[in-house]
């Protein structure tokens, strides 16, 4: 069994340890005896989505996103077809914003991929801090670090999780991220996946299921002591700052 991960434009979209997300997916596949290949695409490379199982779209500065934006127009249709066909995408921060219709910045509008019906508007003040969520995709809280000036509005789409501590999509709605088919968009750095092994495995199993069927997608559990403790550290650190903490967190690992 082999899973191919496409890393889109790491030259430009590589803020805040996205390399860690790739490393996490690769290791968690290999530790289970599943072959993993990473294809890093430069801005001028041709992308054949049919060979990809997971696409990672990372974050960049506004300037870098502007450069990427022009290239995205050319791959919009094939990217969209990949998503509609159940292709797995993990889009983080700037990458999350690019999933939507547009990102309105002080320096102009960045056109997005229009894959999910969401949009982002820059507002004064960045939302910066540790954050954790409760998702209904799995039990373990999702922890990370948010740092964004854009406020993302997800319309009627399903959020990734309810914000227990932190700001989230727009600082008001109480939700963070978006889930659409096998696409997850989120503002969480940290990097995201190493401290959230359940989220990483969720993505991996979706990708395996799509290519190899439901039976193959049942992943062997891994000894996640270090992952769980790093996750728990963030949750514990803020637990006394959250009202009715125990009710909001479904299960602490």
């Amino acid at each position, binding site marked *: 069994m082999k899973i191919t991960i496409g890393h889109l434009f790491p030259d430009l979209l590589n*803020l*805040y*340890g996205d*390399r*860690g997300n790739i490393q996490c997916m690769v290791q968690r596949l290999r530790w289970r005896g599943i072959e993993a290949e990473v294809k890093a695409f430069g801005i001028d490379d041709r992308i054949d989505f049919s060979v990809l199982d997971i696409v990672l779209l990372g974050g960049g500065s*506004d300037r870098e996103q502007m450069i990427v934006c022009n290239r995205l127009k050319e791959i919009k249709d094939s990217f969209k077809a990949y998503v509609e066909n159940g292709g797995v995408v993990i889009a983080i921060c700037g990458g999350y914003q690019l999933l939507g219709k547009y990102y309105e910045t002080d320096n102009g509008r960045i056109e997005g991929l229009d894959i999910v019906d969401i949009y982002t508007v820059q507002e004064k003040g960045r939302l910066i801090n540790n954050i954790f969520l409760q998702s209904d995709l799995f039990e373990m809280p999702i922890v990370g*670090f948010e*740092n964004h000036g854009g406020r993302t509005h997800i319309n009627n789409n399903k959020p990734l999780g309810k914000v227990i501590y932190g700001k989230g999509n727009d600082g008001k709605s109480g939700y963070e991220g978006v889930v659409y088919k096998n696409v997850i968009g989120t503002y969480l750095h940290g990097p995201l996946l190493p401290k959230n092994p359940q989220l990483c495995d969720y993505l991996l199993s979706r990708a395996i299921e799509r290519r190899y069927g439901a039976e193959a997608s049942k992943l062997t559990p891994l000894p996640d002591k270090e992952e769980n403790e*790093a996750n728990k550290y963030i949750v514990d650190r803020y637990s006394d700052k959250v009202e009715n903490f125990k009710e909001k967190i479904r299960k602490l690992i």
Partner: protein
Amino acid sequence: MNLRGKIAIKTAKLVASLCLKMGRQGVTWAGLIARKIEPNILKLLSDQVREKVYIVCGTNGKTTTNNMLCTALINNGKKVICNRTGSNMLNGVVSAFVLATDKSCDLDADYACIEIDEASTKRVLPTLKPDYMILTNIFRDQLDRYGEIDITIKILSESIKMAPKMTLVINGDDPLSVSLAKRSGNSFITYGISEKVFDADENSEIREGRFCAMCGAKMHYSYYHYSQLGDYRCPECGFSRPHIDYPATGIECGDHLAFTVENRRISANYKGFYNIYNILAVYTAAAHSGVDMEGFQTMLDRFTPENGRSEHFKIQGTDIELNLAKNPAGFNQNINAVMADTRDKDIIILINDRDQDGNDVSWLWDVDFDRFGEDSIKSITVCGIRCQDMRLRLKYVDISSELEPSVEKAIRNKLQNGVKNLYVLVNYTGLYSTRNILKRMEGEQ
């Protein structure tokens, strides 16, 4: 000094002496109070400096560069004002000048060497008009404080505009620094390492400036040293590594450092390729501003980077080297220096996430820790507020580590059970406390 200035200085000195017991906080207070009483105090005092005022900015190497420049000038018999304590924001800078005045509230100084935090330049440069700004480099650092590297560049370029007569001393190997200097309109001089030193793998590090800062095209490198530093050229607009006024050649980089500049062989008895840049920056600024360079090597022989920059301790028969590693570029350079030592060694890594460290520890994943997987590394202990994150980071390059939140316990443990050769790598807020612990342990012997 005018009357209001005198009152400002006397009050600030009083406050500083009262605060002495409170430690570093007093320095900031003294600066603040002096400014409140005489807003123009920084200009009044810096105008009294007889020769030159240098400021030092840049992501990595500020403190070492500034202290070394100061030492070089003192070594030449000059009187120098320096903010050695690392108080590099506006009030700390003001305080350095105020506290250096004599009884009649005047300065007796030939030079001033002032380290300034990049974000603080916009508050300092409206009143301080330096002759030189040494810009060491621009790397990704402490993201959540500055937003991102583009913001740092923007702040610096707006600040430089406030001092149009200031000459920039620029690392010519850094395209981000060079494009900033070119666009500023200020005059600038360059230093650089003008030969291929490493057979570096192009992709081993994330290079911030690989896209042309002028036109956005991908740049070509004929060689590169680390991060975005090297010999670059943009195929689209022709932006390229400029003529280097002070090129270093004949590089030796192992247990000690050596290079040649202006037909002078320079050597230093400490490790770390990045230190060549620090020495070269000091050399360039001093030589260009007319300082006599005859005693430069003698000064270097005696110079020890302070405050935990490659600082050496010998405790209970164990060699200990303490080093600051606060961002990917700095950390990778530290790993180079550690791996240049072929003996068996233990490693302690301390990671905090306080404001001065950056609250986001994502950067740990941009450091090439896989290079610690070699046999000569006998153990790695992870400490500090985010020791869990550090342990997890190492797990994903198949390196196991010992978790011990307290760095003191970790050090004592390695003194007992280690291989007598210990490297302690800490990020910013861990530096002073770890250094104090080591100093104390040194005294216990």
